[in-house]
């Protein structure tokens, strides 16, 4: 009699703990996704400043600038409601990343432009924003992986239905082109920069 009671209480306690664990991970995943969004918005706000700072000096590189503006405007239009739009957002942001790194390669070729304090500051801001985006994605992917693993593992998978847990998509790089884009290095001492620094986004497993 007592044994059954104790086992029953233990089972109920375990269900509560497992359920709460899943809910907490689910909310962490949603929150991590929101953080990517915050950083993407920063990036979109930064681009007009960058463009106006370099516009005057590079009239003859109009195409590169226009590509950045266009990619930015396309990215802004996608509604960021939640992980459902991830594929779409990913595509637009990849295009923007590509256009931005081409622009920065061009900026690197104009030492007098780089020397302007404003452009130097904007470069640091852009580096930081790009890093923040990739770190936010990294956190999202790590959290989502943890969430996915938890809900598939025995015995937590028994309460996954109860917690309405569904696997979250990981953030992957959309087009193959982005992987090939050379990493532009804005660090203060280029000769010491680490060429081994990997891209911060976890690669999709083949």
């Amino acid at each position: 009699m007592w044994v059954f009671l104790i086992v029953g209480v233990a089972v109920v306690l375990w269900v509560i703990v497992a359920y709460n664990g899943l809910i907490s991970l689910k909310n962490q995943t949603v929150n991590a996704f929101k953080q990517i969004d915050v950083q993407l918005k920063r990036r979109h706000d930064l681009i007009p400043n960058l463009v106006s700072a370099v516009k005057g000096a590079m009239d003859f590189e109009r195409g590169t600038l226009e590509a950045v503006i266009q990619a930015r405007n396309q990215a802004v239009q996608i509604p960021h409601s939640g992980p459902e739009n991830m594929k779409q957002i990913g595509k637009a942001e990849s295009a923007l990343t590509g256009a931005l790194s081409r622009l920065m390669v061009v900026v690197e070729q104009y030492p007098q432009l780089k020397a302007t304090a404003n452009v130097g500051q904007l470069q640091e801001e852009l580096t930081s924003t790009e890093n923040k985006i990739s770190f936010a994605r990294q956190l999202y992917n790590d959290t989502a992986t943890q969430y996915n693993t938890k809900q598939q593992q025995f015995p937590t998978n028994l309460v996954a239905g109860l917690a309405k847990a569904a696997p979250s998509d990981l953030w992957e790089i959309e087009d193959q082109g982005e992987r090939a884009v050379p990493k532009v290095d804005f660090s203060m001492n280029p000769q010491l920069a680490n060429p081994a620094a990997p891209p911060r986004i976890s690669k999709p497993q083949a």
Partner: protein
Amino acid sequence: MSAAAPNLFQQQAANRRRTTWLVIGFVLFFAWLGFGGDFILARYTAGAEPGAYHHTGPWIGILVTVVAAIMAAYAYRTGPEKVMWATGAREIDTPRTDDERQLVNVVEEMAIAAGLPRPRVWIVPDPDPNAFATGRDPQHSHVAVTEGLLAKLNRDELQAVVAHEMGHIKNFDVRLMTTLAALVGAVLLIQDGVWRVLRGGPRLGGGGGGRGGKKSDAGPLIALLLVVWVLSWLLAPLITQLLAVSVSRKREYLADAMGAQFTRNPLALAAALEKIEHSHEPTLAIKRGAAHLCIADPLGRRLTNREGFLADAFATHPPMAMRIARLKGMGYAQLKRESGQTA
């Protein structure tokens, strides 16, 4: 197919496990000093004649617990602010120079990678490269770097150092180490107090022992335990300090591995540690009490090449060469994995 170098998550798990065992050891040693003594004394005096002293309650255990709790609470309330104040650090509210802007950006980046709120950022006016973190919990945390660190490291390396400090914050290391330091302090305080009482009034402290010396029927085992217990108290400051610094060393390895997780770039931290290592002078602004919070031992002790027993036993940080070797191991494991994927 596990290579010689364990990956960063395996290193994290191993260091967490070792810390757990060390902390359990610490707690058990404390229980032995307090409640263990109560038990032995109770058994030892149980057979004494009616008028003699009888040890009836866990008084030593309660005393030790209360003193330790008060000291931990005091350290916990005043510690972080005191450390910051003692170094003469200035807070960066709105960055003015390029260096300051980069530092604030890097701290923001690492806070995002760690999934924590942004700590407050401070700069310590000291030419030696060093950095430390403090604060009660991740919601009230501070990261401080020296001017020398900003001058000597590039962006990736600065990021790696800040990531190490975020690792300390995420692991609640400040709380852990402050508590352990308070417990060590409690042992010292009690030992000192008892020593004064014994010298001042031998009847008070020595009374029970003196009368108990006339063999009661407690048996040789209890007498032996009593001797071991008294010896434990004599050696307690040494033992607790050794346990505390070995916890500190495990937390350094763990913070290195956490930093590698946040940046996914362990080689940058290895490069930063090499640069910090090559500047010999001690960090004068950082006092001894905050040593265990720094990225590198601020006293500049040269214990870098061997993990010898005595040389290393009292160091708050593992040998630099060991840390760098482990980070490089993680870095090469990562490179191998990535090249294997594209090939």
